[in-house]
């Protein structure tokens, strides 16, 4: 895991180096004199070769210091901390909703393979995968926010709202509905297909036949005996969702103007705020690795057969 993290940091640093301009171009005052510029360069170690700069950067990152964002004029860590939780709430809601929808649908599709329902859900899943999220988001805004004004166009709370407690929660949920639909449509599809194929494999196994032969009701066979084993591979992909929970859906968030990490990253890209971009990418890479680790651990936890190896 560590060597991979080092590799990731090198590549992120290289991309940053390939970009024209350096850390100073973004933050300096055009009126600054040449001497001051040179002095600042020296202070920030920008006059030294790339490999030394990399060393300084890594040292700072290990201390939790990602540098200062050009655009926000604040430490990168602070900026990320402000916005990442908004992404987290939205993604978590979408995650819970997708699990609640996808797993039952996956089971129904598998138990009635090649039935009308199965085809229907297969097509539905493919629509979810094929729909560009920005187009779907715009369509929802047009239909539900602009045309019939059922939901707000964008944002996370009503402007100027000072509500607290439950009223605040209600306001946030009201704003969350449309982005939630877009996000969930995209993620239900994958999870449902996954549950379906895993379930199909399990219900062909001998012990399921035994359970049926024992005279158990079909419901008990499927939901108690088969589903438990079918969910093993599904549970492990939850670990992989960890980075997704924080990275947020950049485009969906941007379209609905949800104040999460996605629009911030877009802002950073458009303003060439490299320290912020590097910070976000580094964090996401770390979360991905952590997610993989969690996936491996959960796999061993839920499936005792794995531990033997």
């Amino acid at each position: 895991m560590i060597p991979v993290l080092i590799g990731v940091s090198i590549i992120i640093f290289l991309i940053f180096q390939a970009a024209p301009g350096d850390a100073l171009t973004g933050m300096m005052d055009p009126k600054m004199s040449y001497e001051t510029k040179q002095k600042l360069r020296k202070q920030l170690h920008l006059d030294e070769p790339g490999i030394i700069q990399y060393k300084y950067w890594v040292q700072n990152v290990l201390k939790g210091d990602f540098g200062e964002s050009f655009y926000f004029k604040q430490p990168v860590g602070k900026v990320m901390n402000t916005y990442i939780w908004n992404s987290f709430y939205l993604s978590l809601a979408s995650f819970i909703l997708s699990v609640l929808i996808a797993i039952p649908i996956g089971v129904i599709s598998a138990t009635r393979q090649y039935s009308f329902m199965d085809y229907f859900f297969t097509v539905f899943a493919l629509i979810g995968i094929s729909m560009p999220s920005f187009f779907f988001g715009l369509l929802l805004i047009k239909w539900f926010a602009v045309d019939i004004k059922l939901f707000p166009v964008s944002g996370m709370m009503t402007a100027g709202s000072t509500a607290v407690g439950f009223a605040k929660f209600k306001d946030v949920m009201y704003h969350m509905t449309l982005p939630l639909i877009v996000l969930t449509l995209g993620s239900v599809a994958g999870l449902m297909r996954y549950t379906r194929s895993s379930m199909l494999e399990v219900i062909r196994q001998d012990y399921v036949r035994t359970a049926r032969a024992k005279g158990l009701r079909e419901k008990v066979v499927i939901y108690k005996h088969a589903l438990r084993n079918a969910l093993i591979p599904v549970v492990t992909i939850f670990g992989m969702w960890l980075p997704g929970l924080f990275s947020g859906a950049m485009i969906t968030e941007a379209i609905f103007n949800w104040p999460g990490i996605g629009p911030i990253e877009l802002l950073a890209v458009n303003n060439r705020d490299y320290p912020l971009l590097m910070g976000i990418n580094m964090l996401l890479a770390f979360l991905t690795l952590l997610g993989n680790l969690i996936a491996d651990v959960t796999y061993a936890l839920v499936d005792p057969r794995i531990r033997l190896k």
Partner: protein
Amino acid sequence: MAELKKNTNKNVELKGAKKEDIMSPWKVVKHRLRRNKLAMVGLYTLLFMIILAIFGPIVQKYVFGITMEKIDLYNISAPPSLKHPLGTDEVGRDILTRLMYGGRISLTVGIVAVSISVVIGSIIGGISGYYGGVVDGIIMRLVDIFMCFPFFPLLLMLAAVLSDYKVDPKYRIYFVMIIIGILSWTGLARIVRGQILSLREQEFMQAAEALGLRDRRKIFRHLLPNTFASIIVSATLGIGSAILSESALSYLGLGVTPPYPSWGQMVQVATDYYVMQYEYWKWIPPGVCIFLTVMAINLFGDGLRDALDPKLKR
């Protein structure tokens, strides 16, 4: 249900066929694909889109005299009419024609990006699986590194760097293809490697060894062809996701840039609420085109996967 039974019967006949009508593996695949209605719908939709993208602009140019850049000053932001079936945009260019050109670009980006990723992925996967040991270890760590990058943020960053170097829009399209291709070979490399790891233990490889073939020949002539089925499936589905990535990138203004149209870029006008509410013809058609094309590719790819799966004998 009745249809299902018929299918099973057909399959029994197929399996118990007389010697003279033994089917080659590709014929079996074709046969299975033809029976999959969803896959066929996908295939025909895709063919329709491709034909429209290739011949559409030619017909528009030589029959109706409309090109991508031609400005109709009397019809600016005009709704669909007989002269302009899908209306015109804010400077009076015909939307249908731009849609066809956009299709050319979006489809080309998808196909070229996937070709790049297939070439890289199968070579690297092949080498990694064939040599194993240290080589495999190093390559797989490299794949891990690439895999733990958040794909879209990285794409954005690279595209932004591209903008900083002020690349000519004409060449920018190629860079977009290359970037998407380079960022998406890892999945395929893993699949190919996994299959080659088991293939190289089989007897025909001992025969290849006995014949004294060179490593290169063993990998490219004997091992890789055996993984074609999974390469084809993942390439087909890959085209769909490459088109989606390109369109999202172009929508954000970081992919294909004007004057060249692409579907994602054409949807961009909907960020203006007036356009979104009243001038639907400007942004709904390109969005629908992206959706239909990607959907068609996914339907076909899904059917292809089922048809190529030897385990799946219904």
